């Protein structure tokens, strides 16, 4: 059976350097895959390649067995949400930010739906009125997650979602990721913190020299 998300031999070269050298990854529905690795090992490149935000020089990315190249980028990216390490907040309120994805496809996000998204990421519905660019790092991560969820994706790609967060905020984000996987989402999390990868409790991978390998002792 086709995996929810699969990278097959993905190769990315930039300026004569091979950033990804035939990376493979398979993530099933409801699975969390934690990718660890030193900085410069290709973790972020892999995530952006899976999100189709980076042109690949070889290999394939598949969504439920269908080559990403055969799916319109706008459609693919709504189904496979990517949240960068430092998610930029868009102009306006938190509610404006949450409504961005639906608005881009010509839909509206009602107040009740926005409130439900905020509560899903552990924020009160009154948070919708806050100015997005004035939020703290932890709050931004939660809002970025809620904003990605507003598109109702089937997979989430999270780049260092706990970076620059205090231990309490980091734990809350990790628990939230676990809960989302429990709802059936496939989640790929890039992290350089071993403890965070372990806490997620999913499959564990290590990115080394542009390739992805199963981490020793991983389930």
């Amino acid at each position, binding site marked *: 059976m086709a995996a929810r998300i699969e990278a097959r031999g993905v190769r990315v070269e930039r300026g004569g350097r091979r950033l990804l050298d035939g990376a493979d990854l398979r993530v099933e529905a409801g699975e969390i895959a934690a990718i660890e690795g030193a900085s410069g090992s290709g973790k972020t490149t892999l995530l952006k390649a899976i999100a189709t935000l980076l042109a690949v020089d070889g290999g394939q990315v598949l969504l439920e067995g269908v080559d990403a190249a055969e799916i319109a*980028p*706008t459609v693919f990216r709504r189904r496979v949400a*990517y949240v960068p390490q430092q998610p930029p907040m*868009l102009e306006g309120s938190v509610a404006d930010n949450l409504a961005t994805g639906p608005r881009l496809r010509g839909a509206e996000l009602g107040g009740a739906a926005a409130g439900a998204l905020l509560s899903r990421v552990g924020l009160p519905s009154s948070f919708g009125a806050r100015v997005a660019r004035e939020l703290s790092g932890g709050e931004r991560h939660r809002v970025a997650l809620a904003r990605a969820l507003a598109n109702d994706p089937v997979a989430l790609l999270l780049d260092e979602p706990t970076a620059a967060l205090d231990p309490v905020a980091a734990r809350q984000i990790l628990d939230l990721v676990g809960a989302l996987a429990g709802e059936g989402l496939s989640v790929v999390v890039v992290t350089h913190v071993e403890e965070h990868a372990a806490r997620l409790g999913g499959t564990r991978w290590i990115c080394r020299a542009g390739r992805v390998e199963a981490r020793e002792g991983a389930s």
Partner: protein
Amino acid sequence: MSYVEIPLPRLGVALGLVAVAAALSRRSGLGLAGDLTLGAARCAAQLLAIGYVLRLLFAEERWYWVALALSVMLLVAAFTSARRVEHGPGTRVLFPRALAAIATGAAVALVPVFTLVVVPRPWFEARYLVPVGGMMLASAMNVVAQVFERIFASAHAEAAVIEQLLALGASPQQALAPQVRGAVRAALIPTINGLLTVGLVALPGMMTGQIVGGTEPEQAVRYQIVIMYQLVAVAAVSGTLAATFARRLLFTAGAQLRVDGG
């Protein structure tokens, strides 16, 4: 038509004005005396040369000479607007696009006016086509240069936000819309300001020239109104086209942002 002629030696007196600026520059340590001297020399040389070229064109009155003159002006305008665009993909990539944007804007402004409004006989009469064509090409050149500069610079500065919008399912058109709007607006504002203040702040060069040359002010004004409207069309058409070309260069076929613009 009668006007006061300027003998060549008297041009030397006018040159004294540049000497005043150069002296002030030297005194204030602006370091611009060299540029001023070179600029004044080039200004005189280029304009004297074009004066002779225009005289030949007017005397010959052949459509192909007019076409050649406009083509050379178009090439120079396109090259100038495609040069030194920071964070852009380079002159070689931008040049053909600048050429298309400038040529289209100028054509949209020139063809209806010279077939329906001014209607010279013959239609290619150099006395009308070359100076008015030159004004349109120069305006389009500035608009295109400004749009390129702004779009590539803002895409570079706001790459993270643009990429975030793409990640949320935006098309390249949607993701770059604020930058495109900003660039085209900025390019149109000087022309709109010109429409609002013309005659109040300054009398435009062409109208002044016609009046000095002996044209009735009423007719000179009508020409100027046409020119102003043409400039609006040039700014809108060339600016929008340049923005469209820039946007296409900024994204791959797979709708990925190219921060180096190509």
